[in-house]
């Protein structure tokens, strides 16, 4: 997987987080995901169809999810991940992916990419596979906590 397909997603997380008023979004290492374990309890996953095909997931701890959602809702306290909160999480995934797709269209080979509806998965000790091919995992350190971005594209 070429790094040019990765950067748009990371830039997009930074961009959207900054719009919500978070200041720190630092990129950690990019690694190939050999282990299917996700060390987080909340995952938003969005599919991509078109010249770029695959899934992208954004994983965070419950606390991080609550902090982000609260900011999205103008500082309203979020006690639990109820329907409203999950809807906000799916919107968060939509916003990041939408912005990333706009960035991806700058790549010459990419003419059309369409996102699919996000799903939210939560639980403990989650293992997942999001693509038949290799998945890259990138940790982003933010002032809301760690966000693990998993990018699994069939290319």
């Amino acid at each position: 997987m070429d790094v040019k397909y990765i950067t748009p997603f990371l830039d997009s997380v930074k961009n959207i987080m900054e719009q919500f008023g978070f200041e720190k979004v630092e990129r950690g290492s990019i690694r190939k995901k050999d282990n299917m374990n996700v060390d987080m309890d909340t995952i938003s996953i969005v599919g991509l169809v078109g010249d770029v095909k695959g899934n992208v997931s954004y994983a965070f701890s419950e606390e991080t999810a609550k902090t982000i959602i609260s900011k999205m809702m103008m500082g309203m306290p979020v006690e639990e991940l109820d329907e409203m909160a999950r809807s906000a999480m799916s919107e968060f995934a939509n916003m990041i992916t939408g912005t990333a797709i706009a960035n991806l269209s700058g790549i010459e080979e990419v003419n059309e990419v369409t996102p699919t509806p996000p799903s939210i998965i939560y639980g403990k000790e989650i293992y997942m596979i999001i693509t038949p091919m290799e998945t890259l995992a990138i940790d982003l350190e933010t002032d809301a906590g760690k966000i693990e971005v998993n990018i699994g594209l069939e290319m």
Partner: protein
Amino acid sequence: MDDRLRKPFMESTKDMIMQMASVEINEQGEFLDQTEDISSYGVATLVTFVGKVKGRLLLDMEPEVASEIVKQVLGEELNDSKDATFMGMIAELNNIVGGDAITRLNNDMSFGLRLASPAVFTGKNVIISIPKIQSSTMECQTKFGKMRINIAFERGGEN
């Protein structure tokens, strides 16, 4: 949800799993609107699709059902649902089922649907939600345990 949208998924799931793994799936009742989040039976696989409409197919099964399918298809017994080969096999199963179903839908209704990659999840107390989108579930029984088929269409499948 229109029966023409969910029927192809039900048929493909039954046909493909029978063909590949000789596991018979018996529907328990009718399709019901899924009003709450889905609490997974153990192994859940989802594949999303886009065309004139957008949606998702979720197959959720007890680990024993998944193990049997893996055993039949790969010819080897893998009982750890966290194993990469095990999970990869179940994801691929959903890719095949989803591919077959959207081909049926595209032929009948010209939706021009395309699949994204399949994903598979396992873990403790896993809950799956598809916010703001209508979905419909058929509970099923196999000789090896329970399985459910959940089909979601944005705006109920209207263009």
